[in-house]
């Protein structure tokens, strides 16, 4: 199946959607941990409660790897919901 096409989605749009999704997160949910890796392949673990701060930093052009990943995940969700896939 063709991969999701993220090319038409801006960082700003992804951030706005992320902000909307994470508004009013309960305390239980804030402590849920996300397990991933950085670009060097090292493990990174962060909480849902920290996501918006990271994403905001990435949006402002800071080298925040978690933030950049979160913006990408947010774009993937937008593309998935739009059914937007690459033609190749």
């Amino acid at each position: 199946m063709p991969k999701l096409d993220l090319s038409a989605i801006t960082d700003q749009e992804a951030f706005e959607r992320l902000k909307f999704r994470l508004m009013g997160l309960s305390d239980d949910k804030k402590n849920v941990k996300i397990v991933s890796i950085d670009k060097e392949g090292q493990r990174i673990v962060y909480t849902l409660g920290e996501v918006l701060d990271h994403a905001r930093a990435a949006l402002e052009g800071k080298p925040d790897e978690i933030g950049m990943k979160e913006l990408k995940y947010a774009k993937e969700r937008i593309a998935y919901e739009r059914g937007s896939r690459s033609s190749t």
Partner: protein
Amino acid sequence: MREVVVVRPDWSDTACKWGAEQLKRKTVAYAAQYEWKVKDLYASKANRADIMEEAQAVTYASVLGHGNEDMYTANLEEPVFWRSDAETESFCKNARDLAINFLSCLVAKRLLPWMISKGLRVALGYEEEFVFAIDENKFPNGVAEAFFACHCSADLKVFAGATMKEAWDYRQACWEKAISEADDELKRYLIHDYNCDAILGDGAFIPAEPEGPEPTPKRFHIKGDFTRESDLLTWIVNGTITLEGTAEIEETT
């Protein structure tokens, strides 16, 4: 009996701790459900020498471990398969009847295409990082469950006798279902894993196919008068039938 090698590294590493427990409760249990024998390489047993040796004796392996674009590692991050390594290449040449399901970040980007080009029959894996969510107060269940249930669904399908492509298609459908049912703030992580889930190699391969040589055709000598009622199944013989070679004869009425 069919046999699967399950590789479950487990040390003080969050991802492997959760993954190892999940593969035990899912992949290992699914195998038992379909009467597959399990060679469970857990913790220190999940090392290069044992993986290389055991995986070559089976048609299917489900492996957990950290990875990157060029390397798959097992317990304590011991490198197991890596690109341009002579032993990995030799392993692949002898893996023409082997399928491997990798729960490992990034390996489907460069390592698995290379392993397939060297002879490994078919592999499932992730082209980017496999991301998942955990609630440490609810180990081993909670929000992690959907991520691993989706990943391990391909193992379930293989044990039931599916081709690797059918198993991968089933996993894709499981991701879609999980995405539709997930809490709003977790959907994007499931979508990411679904989007980077890949199959490489011969998708028509069936790990559960019977082992051993093809059955030898038996020749039947028919003497006497007979009439044929259909091309394939029913002949009415008024005379004798003899067999050449050995065969099991099943009585029918």
